[in-house]
């Protein structure tokens, strides 16, 4: 009897040892021993478009991010590690990479996605898996607007901000009859819708003459421009991006449209648009722009440009700033939180204000959207070089969408 009890006891002991071992083993996977926590760097999984037509943005934002990470480490700040994945501009790939990064690479943060649809898809996964996602590529206003949530942040101006800035610029002109045009996809429609709804509020007399939508990747803009020209609007407002923007500007020059009808387009005087155009840039095209390496002309911006140039041997473009801000917000938030716990970092990021090359930038508490100023101006030839001229700054308060409107859209 005694022996039997002994056997039973040893069985129970064996069982409990096994159980404890199993618990410890499973526990180790999710939370490493406390002594290691201080050393453990935050790991960011970057999903972006490194091949195809949009690859230029992803390489810029990645370099900007790398610079921020390096600066943070040099100053003895938090250590940030990263891995990259190419989504080939395909939203389904963005999500599968996001899952792979979270499950296999065990990243703490996700970031990237030039493709807006990809940003929205990854954002949905971030919400489900509670892994925070920093968007520095996708410009859709839905990301931090109606589809926003606790686990998504945006460190670039979205289409709502671009549209509002454009409307603000156009409201200062005398143009009444407006023709709207753009690339027939999310970005194009979103910029134009936001611009038009803001313009009708700012300037009630404006009249929409018509709309033209071309496919993404259009190579020949002559028929579109000829058709719009025949309608004789006061101003042509265009929402198009990337390679299409360069091709469109080239066609504006070739057809001489800029001498007949004023044209507005976001990033019209951005180096990414003007550099490929060479001496074929259309003068007089109006536009807005979030960042130029020579504007704002401040010491902070100069320091950033010099550091970026030293590292990558070229001037930083707008997306370099977005990636840089993404890295810098993350680094500052880890410092502020004093922890690598994701939830604590999110809390620290909400409403965080940092110094950036364009001045103070804040990640708004309510919608996690970065607020930075935007410039507006016109394409002109200055000292033989095409550049932005007659530049003015719109404060971030002037161009951010109202929080009420965002909360209303989210409650739907």
């Amino acid at each position, binding site marked *: 009897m005694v022996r039997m009890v002994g056997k039973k006891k040893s069985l129970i002991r064996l069982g409990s040892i096994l159980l404890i071992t199993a618990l410890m083993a499973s526990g180790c996977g999710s939370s490493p021993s406390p002594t290691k926590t201080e050393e453990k760097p935050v790991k960011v999984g970057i999903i972006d478009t490194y091949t195809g037509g949009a690859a230029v943005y992803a390489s810029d934002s990645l370099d900007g991010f790398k610079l921020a990470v390096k600066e943070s480490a040099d100053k003895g700040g938090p250590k940030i590690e990263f891995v990259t994945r190419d989504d080939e501009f395909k939203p389904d790939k963005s999500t599968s990479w996001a899952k792979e990064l979270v499950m296999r690479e065990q990243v703490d943060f996700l970031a990237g996605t030039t493709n807006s649809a990809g940003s929205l898809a990854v954002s949905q996964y971030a919400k489900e898996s509670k892994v925070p996602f920093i968007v520095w590529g996708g410009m859709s206003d839905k990301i931090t607007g109606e589809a926003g949530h606790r686990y998504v942040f945006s460190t670039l101006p979205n289409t709502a901000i671009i549209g509002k800035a454009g409307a603000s610029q156009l409201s200062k002109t005398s143009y009444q009859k407006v023709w709207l045009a753009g690339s027939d996809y999310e970005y194009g429609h979103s910029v134009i819708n936001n611009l038009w709804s803001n313009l009708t509020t700012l300037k009630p007399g404006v009249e929409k003459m018509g709309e033209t939508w071309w496919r993404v990747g259009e190579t020949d803009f*002559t028929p579109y421009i000829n058709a719009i020209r025949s309608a004789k609007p006061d101003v042509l407002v265009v929402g198009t991006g990337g390679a299409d923007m360069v091709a469109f500007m080239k066609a504006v020059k070739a057809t001489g449209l800029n001498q007949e009808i004023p044209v507005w387009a976001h990033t019209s005087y951005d180096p990414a648009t003007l550099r490929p155009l060479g001496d074929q840039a259309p003068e007089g095209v109006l536009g807005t722009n979030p960042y130029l390496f020579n504007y704002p002309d401040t010491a902070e911006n100069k320091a950033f440009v010099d550091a970026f140039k030293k590292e990558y041997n070229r001037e930083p473009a707008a997306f370099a700033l977005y990636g840089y801000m993404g890295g810098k917000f993350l680094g500052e938030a880890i410092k502020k939180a004093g922890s690598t716990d994701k939830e604590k970092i999110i809390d620290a990021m909400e409403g965080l204000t940092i110094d950036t090359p364009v001045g103070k930038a804040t990640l708004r508490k309510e919608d996690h959207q970065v607020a930075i100023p935007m410039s507006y101006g016109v394409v002109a030839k200055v000292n033989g070089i095409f550049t932005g001229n007659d530049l003015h700054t719109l404060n971030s308060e002037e161009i951010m969408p109202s929080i009420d409107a965002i909360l209303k859209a989210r409650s739907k």
Partner: protein
Amino acid sequence: MDFATLASQFFIGLSRGMIFFIVSAGLTLIFGVLRITNFAHGALYMIGAFIAYSVSTLFGQGPYGFWLALLVAPLVVMFVSLVIERGLLRFIYNRDHLIQMLLTYSLVLIAGDLVKIIWGTEYKSMDIPNVLRGSFNLWGASLPWYNAFLLIVGPVVALGLWLFLSKTHLGKICRATATDREMVDVLGINSTRVFATVFALGGWLAGLGGALIAPTTTISMGMDASIIIYAFLIVVIGGLGNIWGALISSIIMGVGEAFGILFIPGVAIIIPYIIAGVLLILRPSGLLKSAW
């Protein structure tokens, strides 16, 4: 809508059709003779545009750069095509269509990466030569000189193709192969040379199309995907393998799209598919006799 607008829109559409024709003529020729669905045709067009850019940049975007690019780029693409045909395609002529499609599709991916490695990701642009810059007045509306130039190049290429196909021995064999391949084999004609020539010629046309579009647009990765859809639509509408069918459907597509953009600008994106749909309902096997 005044007459000047309609007329200028018509000519702009026609010049758009000329690019379509030059690219799709090569595709349909390869279709007809080699019986291969060449997905890589768009990639050859893209390579043509990039080489044109490089050649013209080499001459500092100067006045001769463009003309030299127009000459060199198609020849380089022709050579690339020859390498593809001799090195890869000739091994799969007797295989399934699926295998052929997989091979040509893999070439699309390889070409995309090669272009990225060689030219980088930044957008490229080359200048329109001075003599073709600006626009001229056409009954009160303006037409860019470059479009007028395309209106000359298109018919010249069509004429050249007609002369090759109907006046030369090799051209006649090409036509015979497209119409009845078995009969040509039975007659003991060496099809190897015919196949290589046709694929190289198709590549030359794709390269020419790329070099011609290059000064008017952004030279970027992804331009292959945008042309190949048009080229396939045009080849199918025109009748598979029929060059003159491709010419007619290119013009219909170019002019139809231009007028669509004028009258229903809000939904311009679907016009090519409406045109293709209507024409295929009216003539399911293509406008002209299909080689298949």
